[in-house]
């Protein structure tokens, strides 16, 4: 978390030389800052997606798959054509030639005959415009093979688990951190610090494996995985309870693994802020302890905490593959794994997901920038960025 926080600060401070021109345009400083950030992030997004495409296509692997797919679909289409069937009976060689011509035409139409550097730009354009194409074999529950449909179907589940998880762990972590900081070096603080450091270094899937073993398989208190047990013909309140029941273990594991960093960072921040002069002054004035914490400590601590929340969201969206796999939670991470785990890699789904991840990250960072602007008057005035 600290690592990501560090990276983010770097982005905020940096400036793009080419964008200096923007200063001539008369925009309010805050808008200018946002435009600048949007452009920087946009360029980064393009580069990141392009890099992913290049890596995923290395060795022409994806292309080979696509060519094979084209061959298959063309053959299927022609087989249903009566004139082709006729031709196949009378003159098989001509039929084969016709098939090859059709395949070649399709390959050319998709731009697969062009060299890779050129083709990668086509992929990039498709990816960036969210023209994600059709999957190879994965289908949504409505049997749609459009990658967009498949992803949109899974997205709410990932958001349900990991947004809730982030909020819960942040609330618990910050609360514990505040108390640790207030009673720094007490037994509670020392014990909690050590626990927090250890817990935050352990990923949620690790807790998940052990929690499933104990609470699901041995004790049978919770389901052993999945999102719902019964959906059709069940009243809505039972559905919600069912989902909550399934949510408990993954949520608990996610919280256990991430509350530590919140607690430890909040603690260090509180200790730091408690030593500041203005807190001393407030204390000398006789401000009650709770008010002191709320108004004089929490408020200056808000920007870093919001950074942490946003970055935790980012981390959760990218790092949820294994946690979702362990809990059989059919969200985006699990979809990723399904797309890669079959006999054939479902390349369009894999690339589509990577693009979605990249978009989610960029959007999160941009929202963060907006919030920074709101919270930090220096940025609004045009001095901070």
């Amino acid at each position, binding site marked *: 978390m600290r*690592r990501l926080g*560090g*990276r983010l*600060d*770097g*982005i905020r401070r*940096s400036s793009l*030389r080419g964008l200096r021109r923007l200063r001539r345009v008369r925009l309010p400083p805050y808008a200018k800052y946002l435009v600048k950030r949007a452009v920087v*992030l946009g360029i*980064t997004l393009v*580069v*990141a997606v392009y*890099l*992913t495409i290049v*890596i*995923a296509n*290395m*060795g022409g*692997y994806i292309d080979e798959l696509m060519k094979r797919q084209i061959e298959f679909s063309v053959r299927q289409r022609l087989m249903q054509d009566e004139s082709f069937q006729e031709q196949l009976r009378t003159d098989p060689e001509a039929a084969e030639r016709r098939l090859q011509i059709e395949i070649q035409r399709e390959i050319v139409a998709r731009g697969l005959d062009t060299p890779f550097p050129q083709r990668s730009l086509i992929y990039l354009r498709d990816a960036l415009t969210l023209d994600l194409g059709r999957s190879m074999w994965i289908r949504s529950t409505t049997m749609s093979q459009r990658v967009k449909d498949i992803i949109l179907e899974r997205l709410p589940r990932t958001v349900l688990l990991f947004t809730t998880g982030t909020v819960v762990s942040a609330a618990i972590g910050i609360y514990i951190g505040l108390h640790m900081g207030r009673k*720094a*070096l007490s037994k509670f603080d020392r014990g909690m*610090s*050590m626990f927090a*450091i*250890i817990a*935050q*270094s*352990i*990923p949620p*899937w*690790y807790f998940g*494996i*052990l929690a499933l*073993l104990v609470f*699901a*398989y*041995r004790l049978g208190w919770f389901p*052993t995985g999945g999102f719902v047990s019964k959906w059709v013909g069940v009243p809505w309140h039972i559905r919600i309870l069912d989902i909550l029941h399934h949510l408990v273990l993954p949520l608990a594991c996610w919280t256990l693994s991430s509350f530590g960093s919140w607690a430890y960072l909040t603690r260090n921040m509180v*200790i*730091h802020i*408690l*030593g500041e002069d203005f807190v001393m002054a407030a204390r000398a004035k006789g401000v009650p302890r709770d008010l002191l914490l709320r108004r004089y400590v929490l408020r200056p601590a808000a920007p870093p905490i919001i950074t942490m929340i946003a970055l935790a969201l*980012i981390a959760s969206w*990218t*790092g949820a*593959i*294994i946690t979702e*796999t362990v809990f059989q939670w059919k969200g985006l991470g699990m979809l*990723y*794994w399904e797309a*890669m785990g079959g006999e054939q*890699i479902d390349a369009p789904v*894999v690339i589509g*997901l*990577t693009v979605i*991840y*990249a978009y989610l*990250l*960029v959007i999160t*960072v941009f929202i963060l920038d907006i919030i920074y602007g709101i919270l930090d008057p220096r940025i609004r005035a045009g001095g901070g960025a």
Partner: protein
Amino acid sequence: MSAPPIGAKAAFKEVMGTLSGKAAFVLLALIVGMAVLVPIYAPFNVLKAWHDKTEAGPWADNPKCAAPIWAEWFVGKKLPRTIVLDDDDFRKYAYNITYPGQPPLKLIVLVAYFDYRYDEFPNHLNGFRLRVEVTTNQTACLTIKLLRPDKRAINLTETIITPESPILRIYDTDEAMKQVSERYVKYLAEKNNWNLTALGFVNMPYVIFFAKEGPSMLNPRTAEVLKGTYALYITVRVLYDLTADAKAKFVLYGRVHGWAGTDIWRRDLLIGLLWGAPVALAFGIIASVVVSLIQTLLGVISGYFGGKVDDAIQRIAELYMIIPVLPILILVAIIYGLTIWKLLALVVIFSFIGSMTKTVRSMVPSIKAEQYVLAAQSYGAGSWRIIFKHIFPRVLPYMFANIALAVPSYIFLEAALSFLGLGDPLLPTWGKILGEAEAAHAAYYGYWWWVVLPAACIGITATAFALLGYAFDKVVNPRLREL
């Protein structure tokens, strides 16, 4: 690189003075101890055998999915060990019987005794295995009997052996053994007037053969073990060939094995767990040290030179934040396959700019402004000399803390990829064992040791380094200690 002015030694001493430092040291000693045991308990040839998952492979004498021996401390019962009766354990009696005018007969009797005084029946997945090999050019007649302590004898088989297939293999899971046990139970039922359907007869040869006689033996839940000395009695009769010979091997699989149990392929998990220690330590430490070193160096460069260099490094840092590293790693692993070294290279490529770059970059300007650096500059020292001799040593303690704190993340990364089945194909790692357990539904079947032990190994190692990093952090960031 010269010694840092503060002194790495002093820092280490201080770290060892803290409680978390001491705890980290104890846990680390444990893991290093495991790594040291590897050449003694599981040298390279054992590692080769590790990947042999065939039924007749090197692990054939181990029970399937047996718990660790110490599991019986919890259940309060004496759980069966594996009993192996080899060629030497069988007493062999050979007779040449010749009558004038009659074909010569070779009679070989193999007898082996074994004590079975455990509170549980043999392994439920595979109770026993018997292998009889007859060397002759004639057809041999073979009978095998199991003699029980209650003086009953169970005819396991009566068969002939031809020179073309001189080896007879019997498993308790064979259909033939089920018929044997059913016949035996039916005989007892007729004698004692038991109603088999009313009593709910479940035909489990490994239970029936070793159960106390009575209606309770019909169900594995109620059956009690008949403790005592059993005997295996094998007779081989061959006509016309007085040179015939026979040898037998009997393995009665137990429910506990070794200190770490076994998996579904009968492998001794202790070997895999021990091997996981050096792999995890080496991977975690090398990845962490290399990445931290590069990050620190780039931070120093970024902070020292500023300007375009700084800008470029910041751009890359931004890019790295957007790239979804784990999905890309998985993709690369699936398409191209990963060895531990490839993974290491990828990790370095995807994280050579990170938290340390940022932290160090913010520290460098103040160090650069210090008088001894100015002095060095004034006597004409070059930038690189100043960086390596004067600035780098100053940020070294921070790097140590970062190295220790980063080790768990790399260990877990490797474990995660191995868990998904994408790890190094040759090395047994803790993550791989966990992944195999998951794939074999170990948690569902209750093979807890298969999940808990590798998980514990990963957990202990991660905890050790997290504690070490925490202790270091406290030493190098004194602000966190005081109010």
